[in-house]
């Protein structure tokens, strides 16, 4: 048992480190190191532009989407090399945020289901950040039950005409292409009437509107489709096979290993080490210590769980199911930590003015943003279902709409 690289891994790490030292945009290092939670913002620069420049440089050096085959813009690297790259890329990895949906979900779906022409046309530009992709799955009435989606695509000659609405689309306003799942047959059960497409986000009839979120920010969008025309050549998989195609996408969403999940623990530890309470430092209070310790072991448990997965990759094995716990643990922990940090400040904990805030107001922001951590990318409840069914082998839910034609499924609760 050790944490050492194999000789090949060490060699790869050295090459990556050297390249990063010579090429990384060091002028942003400090700013990137600070923004640990939530979306990244740069004070004087546009995040997408800075990200695109870094991504382009990486692509030229052979470091973009490095686990992809070379002919599609990657490096043909092994899974463990990808992890090593992420470790070495460090804070600059935060600049890849605009490309993560494309790299992690849309790209793999095109790779698995697209024609050879489509792969050669779209994947290299996705990898180099020249073209940004977004994912158009969720709808206002189809979240966890995404197969219940309503957006319609109807065949007209060689084209499809799309009408409907998507929601929670990150980066739709700066994306060039979108991966879209739509209903092509409402007369069959819901999973069987779906088809996957990709489309140009600048197509006539596509309208992107930002959503004002519960935390007051605007990070996601609604996307409206009004008679949007998509050529049949931009279909991925057979008509009616969209659900299977979407599983490729969603599986990739949950496979990201060694990803940087914020837990809030280092911030909380520092906060408690400096906060003066009536009887002394917060960290000397037994109740505070007990809570801190419980959170600290969760954070370390997550860290070493990902180390176990990395070790499996290093041996060329498939990581076990342990990694599925990450977001479930960290999402709730962020919310609990924020609540408790504010509790320690008493009534003043609710204040958010620049003069009042302790620790730059990060816990107040964390509190207001954390509900989304427990919803986006699979709610806590869906993640528990996945663990229960796929890891523990418990029966799936009884689905009352399974064999019912989509257009006969009730749409109102009462």
């Amino acid at each position: 048992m050790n944490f050492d690289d194999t000789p090949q891994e060490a060699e790869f790490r050295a090459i990556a480190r050297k390249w990063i030292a010579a090429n990384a945009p060091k002028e942003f290092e400090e700013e990137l190191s600070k923004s640990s939670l939530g979306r990244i913002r740069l004070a004087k620069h546009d995040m997408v532009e800075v990200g695109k420049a870094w991504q382009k440089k990486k692509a030229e050096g052979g470091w973009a989407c490095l686990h992809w085959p070379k002919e599609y813009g990657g490096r043909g690297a092994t899974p463990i090399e990808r992890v090593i790259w992420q470790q070495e890329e460090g804070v600059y990895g935060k600049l890849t945020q605009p490309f993560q949906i494309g790299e992690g979900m849309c790209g793999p779906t095109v790779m698995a289901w697209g024609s050879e022409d489509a792969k050669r046309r779209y994947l290299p530009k996705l990898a180099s950040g020249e073209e940004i992709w977004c994912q158009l799955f969720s709808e206002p009435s189809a979240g966890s039950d995404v197969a219940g989606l309503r957006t319609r695509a109807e065949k007209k000659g060689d084209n499809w005409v799309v009408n409907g609405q998507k929601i929670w689309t990150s980066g739709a306003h700066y994306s060039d292409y979108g991966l879209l799942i739509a209903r092509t047959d409402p007369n069959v059960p819901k999973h069987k009437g779906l088809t996957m497409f990709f489309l140009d986000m600048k197509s006539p009839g596509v309208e992107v509107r930002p959503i004002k979120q519960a935390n007051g920010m605007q990070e996601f969008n609604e996307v409206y489709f009004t008679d949007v025309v998509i050529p049949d050549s931009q279909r991925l998989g057979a008509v009616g096979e969209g659900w299977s195609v979407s599983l490729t996408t969603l599986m990739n969403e949950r496979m990201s290993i060694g990803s940087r999940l914020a837990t809030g623990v280092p911030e909380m530890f520092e906060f408690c080490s400096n906060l003066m309470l009536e009887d002394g430092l917060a960290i000397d209070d037994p109740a505070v210590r007990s809570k801190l310790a419980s959170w600290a072991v969760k954070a370390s448990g997550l860290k070493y769980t990902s180390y176990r997965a990395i070790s499996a990759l290093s041996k060329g094995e498939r990581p076990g199911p342990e990694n599925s716990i990450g977001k479930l643990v960290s999402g709730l922990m962020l919310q609990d930590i924020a609540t408790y940090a504010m509790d320690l400040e008493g009534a003043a904990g609710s204040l958010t003015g620049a003069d009042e805030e302790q620790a730059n107001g990060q816990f107040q922001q964390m509190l207001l943003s954390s509900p989304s951590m427990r919803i986006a990318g699979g709610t806590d409840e869906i993640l528990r279902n996945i663990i229960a069914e796929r890891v523990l082998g418990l029966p799936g839910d009884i689905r009352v709409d399974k064999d019912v034609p989509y257009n006969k499924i009730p749409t109102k609760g009462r």
Partner: protein
Amino acid sequence: MNFDFSDEQKQMRDEARKFLSEQCPPKAVREVLDGKAPYDKSLWKGLAEMGFLGVAIPEQFGGAGAGHLELCVIAEEMGRALAPVPFSSTVYLAAEAILIAGSDAQKQKWLPKIASGDAIGTLALFEGKGNPSPKAVKVTANGGVLNGVKKPVPDGAIADFAVVAARTGSSGRESDISLFIVDLKAGGVEVKSLTNIDLTRGQAEFTFKDAKAEPLGAAGEGWGVITQVLDRAAVLTAFEQVGGADRALEMGRDYALDRIAFGRPIGSFQAVKHMLADMYVSATLARSNCYYGAWALSTNAGELPEAAAAARISATQAFQHCAKNNIQVHGGMGFTWEFDCHMYYRRANAVALGLGSLSYWEDALIDRMRKKNAA
């Protein structure tokens, strides 16, 4: 990165699991639970024959000389099987104390007997309520004899010898504490069995009346050794706890698949599924913390104190969580004597206290993290 046990170590785990499933089925645990025997003697003998008792004891002292990673995988299986033998007190506490502080002669005298199953050892540290602290040690050592009372002492009633923490000074500092080995068969120690919530592991009270004692390690350095022993035992015990947590989770899962209510397996209800999923999360976090503890233990890393505390806390929480929810999944059947759920519940809650309670280790973890952050 190779943050995993080796194939040989995994093979040893499989061997231990097979051996324990044959030699230590729930029926055997119940012999001790029901008070028919103080511990499972034939299992103890079998463990010695398998080489498990001395797996981390060097060959020159009669052990297998394998190491602590091997001991970790065996510990996990012992916890999984609820093995009713004095493994933790003899191997994690007494043997570790002697390995750390013992003279060559002491090692020669006791370690081969531990490895062969001929001597049961324990650590007599606590004196009534409270967590490990040099201030709580009142038993005195004067002129080579001990006086005072220790309780609870794990497996004290069946032990042949004990490592005892005693007071040799009155400065109010840690250096007041020294360690001694007491041969419990040599007279001068009254041993009284105490009842406790885990009926598969005994606890005792020792009353020393001018009991002859041999110093273990240098005078005044006892507390440092105790701290090391507790850290090492914390990692090993955490593996037992993870083994128990995993077994409790499996029992709950299996029952949820078999038991029908409202016309369907109860494991198809989300309320039950989510409870089991949360148990899996706790057990997984604990296992990963334990692996880190195992690494630190086996390499004697400077990170051991922090890693041991994290493993201990995480594993304590996981075992308690899994054991109590295992009963909940079983419903009324889980509250019968006949079902095994209560054996895991008892063990989970007793083992949570044995090396100092959760709050003690939480406190220790924060101290150790601060020390690291300050460094």
